[in-house]
């Protein structure tokens, strides 16, 4: 059967099943975030992919390249568009330091545990896979955090801080991922042309700046609301193509472009609104693709177990440390105690997008990274569901 049939029939089944479960079944509370978050689509992609039914081959995926670029670009641009300087100024240095330390502790512990393990499992890919996975480990999903903990979370000082940490963790993950790939795993031609790593970093930032500058002028005259969507799609697909050719991560490029546009372009603010309109199809595409590219290899189980355990421990530790270092940040004594220790456990679009872009760009640890990261997203959604306070009814996005 043709891949298009398979994927669409399965998508309809998932959509119907989701509607049915939402309406008629009283799901156990811990499962609700995972179901509402569209994780059925992850299973859908996996079920239709080469590992289970083999109905969709890897070669069929290359036809949909522009669509993947769009989905990955969307994540990057959406992150970048949230980096408005006026908003960033409201974040205190303490919060920046705290979130960065949190990220570095989680990533560092994950790397320390994963690297020796990967040296045994896949020595050739050990450095690449463990570096990228440790960055993925650092990323949380603010959307999932809200979904799991409920909207009340944002009313508490500690809850707001955790949401901010989750947002910033995505930003750090994308930025560090860009730097790591450009420094350690550059495109061979680029490495030949610019052998020094700092020059490659400058080149990548310069490339993003040039793209942002050019796109800025496209927006300078403004456009009717509906037509702006065209501009966005064109920008994301073009960035995806440039990223693929230069092997600079597309998330990194799109993030820098988004950050420039929201601060410099006349109509930069409106872009965010348009990204949200196209959010659902692109997010679901990302999830389905993540399921498709999941390829369990030898040694997956220990790697996955190590990743999940290390990340869970690291997040718990980092949160404890954060509470001790800055107890006053929670506003008053006792505040923040209602926010669970593992609030930052769930992962989402950024983790998946990094894993997929790594798979798409044929860089180090191509199979290993999505093999661990994709089921981990599912597991963390389930883990975070236990002990959550929210009802998981908020739609994902």
């Amino acid at each position, binding site marked *: 059967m043709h891949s298009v049939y398979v994927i669409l029939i399965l998508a309809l089944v998932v959509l119907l099943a989701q509607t049915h479960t939402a309406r008629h079944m009283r799901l156990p509370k811990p499962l609700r975030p995972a179901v509402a978050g569209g994780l059925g689509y992850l299973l859908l992609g996996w079920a239709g992919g080469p590992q289970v039914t083999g109905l969709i081959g890897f070669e069929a995926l290359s036809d949909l*390249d522009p669509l993947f670029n769009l989905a990955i670009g969307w994540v990057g641009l959406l992150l970048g568009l949230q980096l408005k300087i006026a908003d960033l100024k409201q974040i205190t240095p303490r919060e920046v330091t705290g979130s960065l330390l949190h990220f570095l502790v989680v990533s560092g512990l994950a790397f320390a545990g994963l690297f020796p393990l990967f040296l045994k499992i896949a020595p050739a890919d050990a450095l690449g896979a463990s570096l990228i996975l440790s960055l993925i480990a650092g990323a949380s999903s603010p959307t999932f955090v809200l979904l799991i903990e409920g909207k009340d979370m944002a009313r508490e000082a500690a809850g707001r801080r955790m949401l901010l940490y989750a947002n910033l963790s995505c930003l750090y993950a994308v930025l560090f991922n860009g730097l790591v790939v450009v420094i350690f795993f550059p495109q*061979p*031609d680029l490495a030949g*042309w610019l052998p020094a790593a700092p020059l490659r970093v400058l080149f990548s930032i310069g490339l993003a700046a040039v793209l942002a500058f050019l796109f800025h002028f496209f927006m300078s005259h403004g456009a009717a609301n509906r037509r702006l*969507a*065209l501009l966005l799609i*064109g920008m994301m697909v073009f960035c995806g*193509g440039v990223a693929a050719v230069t092997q600079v991560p597309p998330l990194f490029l799109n993030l820098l472009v988004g950050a420039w546009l929201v601060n410099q372009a006349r109509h930069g603010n409106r872009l965010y609104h348009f990204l949200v309109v196209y959010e659902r199809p692109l997010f679901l595409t990302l999830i389905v693709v993540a399921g498709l590219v999941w390829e369990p290899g030898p040694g997956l189980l220990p790697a996955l177990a190590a990743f999940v355990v290390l990340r869970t421990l690291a997040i718990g530790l980092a949160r404890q440390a954060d509470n001790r270092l800055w107890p006053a940040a929670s506003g008053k004594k006792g505040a923040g105690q209602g926010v669970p220790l593992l609030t930052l456990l769930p992962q989402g679009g950024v983790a998946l997008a990094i894993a997929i872009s790594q798979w798409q760009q044929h860089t180090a640890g191509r199979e290993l990274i999505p093999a661990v990261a994709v089921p981990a997203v599912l597991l963390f959604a389930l883990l975070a569901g236990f002990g959550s306070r929210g009802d998981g009814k908020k739609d994902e996005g």
Partner: protein
Amino acid sequence: MRLLMLIALLGLMKGLGSLGLQGAADAGHHSAMAFGFLILAGYVFGEWTLRMRMPAITGYLLAGLLCGPALLGLLDQQVVEQLKLFDRSALFLIALEAGGELRLESIRKQLWLIASSAVFQVLLGGLLMFTAFWLVRDHIPFLQGLSPLSSAALIALVAMVSVAKSPATSVAVIVETGAKGPMRDYSLGVTIVMDVVVILAFTLTRQLTLPLFHAGGESHLLQEVLLMLASISVGAACGLALILWMKRRQAHLHLVLLGFCLLMVRLSHDLHLESLLVAVGAGFVIANFSDKGQPFIGALEKISLPIYLVFFGITGASLDPAVLARLWPLALFFVAVRMSGKWASNWTASRLCRAEPSIRRQGWKGFLGQAGVSLGFAAIIADNVPQGGDQVQDMIIAAVLVNQLLGPILFKQGLEKAGEIPVA
């Protein structure tokens, strides 16, 4: 300024290529960059044409033409083929929108006018084209060396191709301008009817003429009729299924429609159904036999702009201006005669049915656009007519380029003159 930025982006693409940064990237990556460039160029060109009171789709076509293999070569033939999945899906969605815009009430009002216009376009328009080419047959290169009977057969095929029009173009202009009124209903109605009539007329002509060229053209009128009926029935069934879906679930309808479209394009292809009729059937049933017409059209409009850009951009990329440069006298002759045929058939039909003056004067402008169907017919002629078939195909490609650029502009102007475009 935006043109400069486009040139700069082009320079960036070329620069990345010349730096040798292609080693690890396969063709797909370059196609992604080129596809992104096409969308951005389409956006810029669309803005320009809108400012010049022309439809945006003309801009998309020009962008496609610019990026296509014939000019900049950013989208080579392989890439254009790769993008065909998007192209076919876009056409399906456009046809779905056309079906959704068709109202039973307005069709009933103009039933005779629509039917007679379609019949006159085939008979009168076809006859005019046949006569014109027959009269100048000594000067037509592809008719040289053919017997009178074979010449007549080939001209008959050309005449049938000239009758075909692009449904997507009409629908895109109508949706883009938000036109409302009798001329819009008339153009839409004739467009849908012509889609059926033209295929039947071409199949019949093909059946009658191809044996003269000793070609093994496999086509059966009855089979075509049955397939069309099957297509409309499948479309109607799909429409009912979508109504049921919409009654149960309203959220993210545009996403469901996208999925439905991808599925149906593939299914139609595998079952040899006419996907356009499937789509029109589905849209028509939803708009006329349920109260879900508004949300349905609303969801389609949400995704229509990128779809139009992709569709017309790829159409533009498939056209070859070099052929026009080579065959312009013949192509312009074809275009002029076709235009006269459209005018004459519209005038006759509207006089006979006492249509409104705006339709009588401006109606013909809605039938000039020509694209996929005509190019498909031309390919069939090239495949089946050993002597002169290729030249006919080239002439039609050149003429389609002119018609596709002129058609939307004149149609928009016609709607404007008919007073059916709301003032912004």
